[in-house]
């Protein structure tokens, strides 16, 4: 593997070297429940909740972030200003039909789950580090891996929970 890759653009060669959990999750089947739990506990420690206690930004900006799949490839100019690429994997709103199916449907997310503290904190944690809840999840660690900023994640939270967001409103 090592001799087969080289640095290109913003993607340094070291990016091919694996973190421990990435290595453990590099097989067709999930590891044992015990191993999974240990990874999840480690990953949960990385989650940082908003310091100001505010979880929600602007759903309109959230929609743009959810739709954009841009960022962190060697053709991107900067490692910042990334999209969330959520639509690559998730159904989200009533009107966008170009959604992927690798993830579960998030249609009417806020309407179906409500906005209890538990649900809000769980959702923040899932977006921040999906591996804290499913060790080998296909979903990226948006916060922990610095794909998205705290502000961008707040916009996405609004997109999922705001009653006026097309995720919840027809």
């Amino acid at each position, binding site marked *: 593997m090592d001799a087969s890759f080289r640095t290109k653009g913003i993607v340094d060669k070291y990016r091919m070297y694996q973190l421990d959990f990435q290595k453990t999750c590099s097989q067709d089947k999930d590891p044992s429940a015990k191993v999974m739990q240990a990874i999840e506990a480690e990953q949960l420690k990385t989650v940082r909740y908003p310091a100001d206690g505010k979880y929600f930004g602007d759903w309109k900006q959230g929609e743009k972030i959810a739709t954009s799949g841009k960022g962190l490839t060697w053709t991107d100019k900067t490692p910042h200003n990334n999209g969330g690429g959520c639509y690559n994997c998730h159904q989200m709103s009533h009107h966008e039909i170009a959604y992927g199916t*690798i993830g579960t449907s998030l249609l009417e997310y806020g309407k179906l789950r409500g906005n209890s503290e538990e649900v809000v904190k769980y959702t923040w944690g899932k977006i921040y580090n999906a591996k804290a809840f499913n060790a080998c999840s296909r979903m990226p660690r948006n916060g922990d891996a610095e794909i998205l900023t705290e502000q961008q994640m707040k916009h996405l939270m609004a997109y999922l929970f705001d009653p006026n967001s097309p995720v919840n409103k027809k």
Partner: protein
Amino acid sequence: MRNRTAQFVMAAGMIALNVTTWSPSALADAATDEIAKYREMLADGNPSELVAAQGEELWKVKRGTKNATLEQCDLGLGPGVIKGAAAQLPRYFKDTGRVQDLETRLMTCMETLQGIDTKELNKTKWGKGEMEKMEALVAYIVTESNGHKINVDMRPAQMKKMYELGKMAFFYRGGAMDFSCATCHGQPDKRIRLQDLPDLREHKGAAAGWGSWPAYRVSNGQFWTMQHRLNDCYRQQRFPEPIYGSDVTIALSVYLAANGNGGPVLTPGLKR
């Protein structure tokens, strides 16, 4: 053929227009429709025919420090045999002691027969200079396997070893987004946005995925070799760049071809 290509270029212009004026969801529908229309329109002709014709000429042109043609190149079925050769690649070659895919085998022929320095390819952009010539040769050779069956010889120990390496690479997670090939190609019936993703672990998906590449890509009007396809998947995977012709690219090709063994070869493919 030329006529058809002109039509094709016009239609491609229409799609570009739609992209800028339509809403995203309407666009998605329209784009799928348009592509279905092209497929029909091109049912008996593929723009890669032009590329393949250039490749056929190149095969017979004297080049390099040895001022020789590629006509004696052995792609596995004997010197100069092209018909069906691509369907049986990658293959273990005794003369080089390596498992080679079509592109790395062509590099060997260019070096030994023609005296061309293929290290340049590593620094050349897709579609430019020596790479453009490589692409033309590939288009020519894979056209001569159209309608054959994927038939890679998995008996040699070297092939088995490459398969294991390819499998390892397929599930190897890393990079900023923790992706592996399996993140996108490791489950049945999934898609990204509206693009269907073949499950490349299984015979059916691997046969469809491997057997339809190299291909002409409608969206950007380019002919892509398999090395190019893999390169772009690694880009989407947020990995550093796989070096042209490197072990990992050949190993993945062996993994895909072996999983697809027996499936139809429909090359050059025609893709979105």
